[in-house]
């Protein structure tokens, strides 16, 4: 690599005197401490800067946070401009020319960040922008520094926003936990306790600690009582949060299972075809999403956010077509021969996987979530669910609605149900059962494709994607009761929730085993699954 050398000309000689005019002297001295390759010295300099609270260093600190701050042999600090290879003086902001080789980066590690973040927050707490002030206040509430008490007080006087005021008060109260005055400690414990945030627990527990002689470290009884109440409140909140999160994560996992299994509920559940290639239909749905995404990124990047919506019908049609091809080409010759169907579809699954490997390579492909689909939603304090998982829950509900509509509100659905319940009777009433088979298989495959689109947002998209879901899908359909769409819904959600409630106690590996054993026992006792079709028509 050829490094570009730039000469430092006249400017550099004049510069320090000019900069001195605009920035206070003690700030300059403190900032000079940042020019070190030892992180401990950098941390010490930041502590001093925290006390000075001079906004003049804000650009330098933000540059440090973004790894753009460096220094030369003379201890001058430079900020690398984001746009090009040029530099500016860290304190004055004037452009300077300096050789890249002469610079050393100011070290940044987690201990430095831990001090740096509140110092930056302290300087941003007076920003015009509400959002900036809010995030600054959040940071201060989380990691307050005793040097910042005054600044926080000053900010509180000016602040109009209630939420920011609340956060700043928490920051103050956290500092007050170490106060000399028992009254202030009491007030602080009450306020900190009212937040019921888990991260305050260790601090509060510290108040209840005893020394080796059995004396409390906290002398005041009232403060200790308040701390105990606060801890109890936090713990009760934690129990609720644990319950809610198990439930929510369980629903989320259940909805993933449901989407993976719905297509199979039609193909295996209604038609009785043991389709081992079901996982590959999911995979093809996911790869279709990848292709649509690539097309959008190449030809219409301005609409990139919408690729996911476009991928839905396309994936339905593509996997539906693959399904129809499978049915017409192979499976229709094998109805009522479950063993052969099993082996053939297993073969098809291998062919499809290898085909995808040959076209896209063995490595995973990257499907990136559109902007509106990333991030997370906070359900309650301590429980958040990623937006894509929320999306999957909603989407699962929509697909269930679609399948219900297809099966119970369309002519095709009526014919499908008729053929599945009693093929001969339906045929003698004029239903072209052969054609119905084809469309049913196609619809089931298409629904699997929709599942694949959703899965592409939360799991890795690779040739083996389907392998991870095939066993789970069969498990869901068998448990739910073969031939019953709503059984599938209940069993998927039930399995999801059950495994999430088991997981904290047993670990993910054992939870899966326990569920497996449970299902085997259940099927022994009730072979027809949770819900079974009733009536004479079903008996065949």
């Amino acid at each position: 690599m050829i490094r570009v050398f730039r000469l430092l000309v006249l400017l550099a000689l004049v510069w320090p005197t000019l900069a001195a005019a605009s920035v206070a002297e003690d700030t300059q001295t403190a900032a000079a401490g940042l020019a070190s390759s030892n992180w401990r010295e950098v941390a010490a300099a930041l502590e001093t800067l925290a006390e000075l609270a001079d906004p003049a260093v804000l650009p330098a600190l933000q540059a440090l946070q973004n790894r753009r701050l460096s220094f030369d042999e003379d201890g001058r600090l430079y900020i690398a401009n984001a746009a090009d290879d040029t530099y500016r003086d860290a304190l004055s902001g004037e452009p300077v020319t300096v050789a890249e080789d002469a610079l050393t980066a100011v070290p940044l590690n987690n201990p430095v960040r831990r001090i740096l973040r509140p110092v930056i927050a302290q300087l941003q707490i007076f920003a015009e922008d509400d959002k900036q002030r809010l995030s600054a206040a959040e940071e201060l509430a989380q990691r307050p520094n005793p040097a910042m008490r005054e600044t926080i007080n000053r900010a509180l006087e000016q602040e109009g926003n209630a939420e920011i005021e609340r956060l700043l008060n928490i920051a103050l109260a956290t500092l007050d936990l170490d106060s000399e005055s028992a009254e202030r400690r009491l007030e602080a414990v009450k306020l900190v306790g009212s937040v019921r945030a888990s991260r305050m627990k260790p601090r509060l527990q510290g108040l209840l600690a005893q020394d080796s002689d059995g004396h409390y470290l906290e002398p005041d009884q009232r403060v200790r009582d308040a701390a105990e109440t606060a801890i109890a409140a936090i713990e009760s909140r934690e129990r609720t949060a644990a319950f809610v999160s198990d439930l929510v994560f369980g629903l989320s996992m259940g909805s993933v299972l449901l989407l993976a299994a719905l297509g199979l509920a039609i193909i295996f559940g209604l038609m009785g075809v043991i389709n081992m290639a079901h996982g590959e239909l999911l995979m093809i749905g996911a790869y279709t999403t990848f292709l649509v995404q690539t097309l959008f990124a190449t030809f219409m990047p301005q609409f990139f956010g919408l690729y996911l919506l476009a991928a839905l019908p396309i994936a339905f049609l593509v996997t539906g077509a693959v399904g129809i091809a499978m049915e017409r080409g192979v499976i229709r010759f094998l109805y009522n021969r479950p063993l052969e169907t099993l082996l053939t579809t297993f073969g098809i699954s291998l062919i499809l996987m290898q085909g995808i490997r040959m076209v896209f390579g063995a490595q995973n492909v990257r499907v990136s979530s559109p902007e509106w689909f990333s991030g997370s939603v906070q359900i309650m304090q301590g429980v958040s669910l990623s937006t894509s998982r929320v999306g999957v829950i909603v989407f699962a509900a929509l697909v269930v609605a679609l399948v219900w509509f297809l099966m119970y509100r369309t002519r095709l659905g009526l014919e499908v149900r008729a053929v599945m319940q009693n093929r001969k009777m339906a045929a003698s009433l004029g239903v072209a059962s052969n054609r119905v088979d084809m469309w049913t298989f196609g619809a089931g495959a298409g629904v699997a494709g929709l599942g694949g689109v959703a899965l592409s947002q939360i799991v890795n998209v690779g040739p083996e994607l389907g392998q991870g879901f095939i066993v789970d899908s069969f498990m869901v359909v068998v448990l739910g009761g073969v031939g019953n769409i709503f059984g599938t819904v209940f069993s998927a959600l039930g399995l999801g929730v059950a495994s999430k409630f088991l997981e904290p106690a047993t670990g993910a590996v054992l939870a899966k085993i326990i569920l497996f054993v449970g299902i085997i026992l259940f099927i022994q006792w009730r072979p027809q699954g949770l819900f079974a079709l009733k009536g004479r028509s079903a008996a065949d």
Partner: protein
Amino acid sequence: MHSLSGTMAISETSLRDVALMSIEQINEQGGVLGRRLEPVVMDPGSNWPRYAEQARELLQRHNVDVVFGCWTSVSRKAVLPVFEELNGLLFYPVQYEGEEFSENIFYTGAAPNQQSIPAVEYLMSDEGGGASRFYLLGTDYVFPRTTNQILRAYLNANGVSDDNIREVYTPFGHSDFQSIVSEIRSFSQGGPTAVVNTVNGDANVAFYQELANQGISALDVPVMAMSVGEEELRGMDTATLEGHLAAWNYFMSVESSANDAFVETWFDYVERNSLPGGSNRVTNDPMEATYIGMQMWAQAVEQAGTTDVDEVRVAMRGQCVNAPSGHRICMDEENHHLHKPVLIGEIRGDGQFDVVWETEGPIRAENWSPYLNNGE
């Protein structure tokens, strides 16, 4: 002999590529003993018994002089008897759990004391956040289980009681880390906590995504990864992972002239052969280990004047090369492991690592951990 298909393809494919690159480089410089090296490429397809079959085929049918191969410990364990029976030579390029030695294998990856133990030491130091509670998260197989067994013994010896250690395993290819991350969050309330991550393969994508979703930053709970390198971060959104850590013996971002040359040769090779991924490709630790192994073997053969396994083995001991990590790396006289420097890197927003800590120089491998009873 690396899997080019199946679950391990994601990691092993680039080892095949870098091995072919090194062979090409050695041939350009005149080959070994005046003769050109000829590669034989095998694909065991992530199928452990097939590794053994193909090793036999390589040694008996293709009469190869040396094999560079394997990634997972289970594949290495599968081929080990074959190499011993037929007196072949295997270079194994990946960090592993130790507790093994064979006359027929040279281990160019790290032993536990060259990776996981320094990593935990760092986490316990001021610099690493002074962790006193450890959440050991891994995939359920031999490498994470043995590593965690060693780490638990090490932590116990350093005053961390079992109450402050939580060991959790997930199946291969686990994709739902919601409960685990939420448990990490509540576990971390008990004091400064760090996570030691021995999750393998693409499950890491889901794990790190979930960390970001639940807003666990490296400031609160740093995650130290043992099997996450540049290749695994490729294609992950790393902006939210800033500050999380990984321990290796090499990073692509290491500044040394040897590394500049290595990276340049690599990209040149990628471009000339238009390998998939193109300019997005990266170099990583096991690739460096493959590269070092190849150079060392060539030097040892020159020195021995023959490719005969018994003589090359003797010549290999004490052999040194200038490695891309910027150090002069030598093969131990006895234990068939390299003396390697240990580097701790922080994940950067661009998917690379920033070295925040390193040992002063290469350290000797302890393939039999003193923290396990069966280490003799």
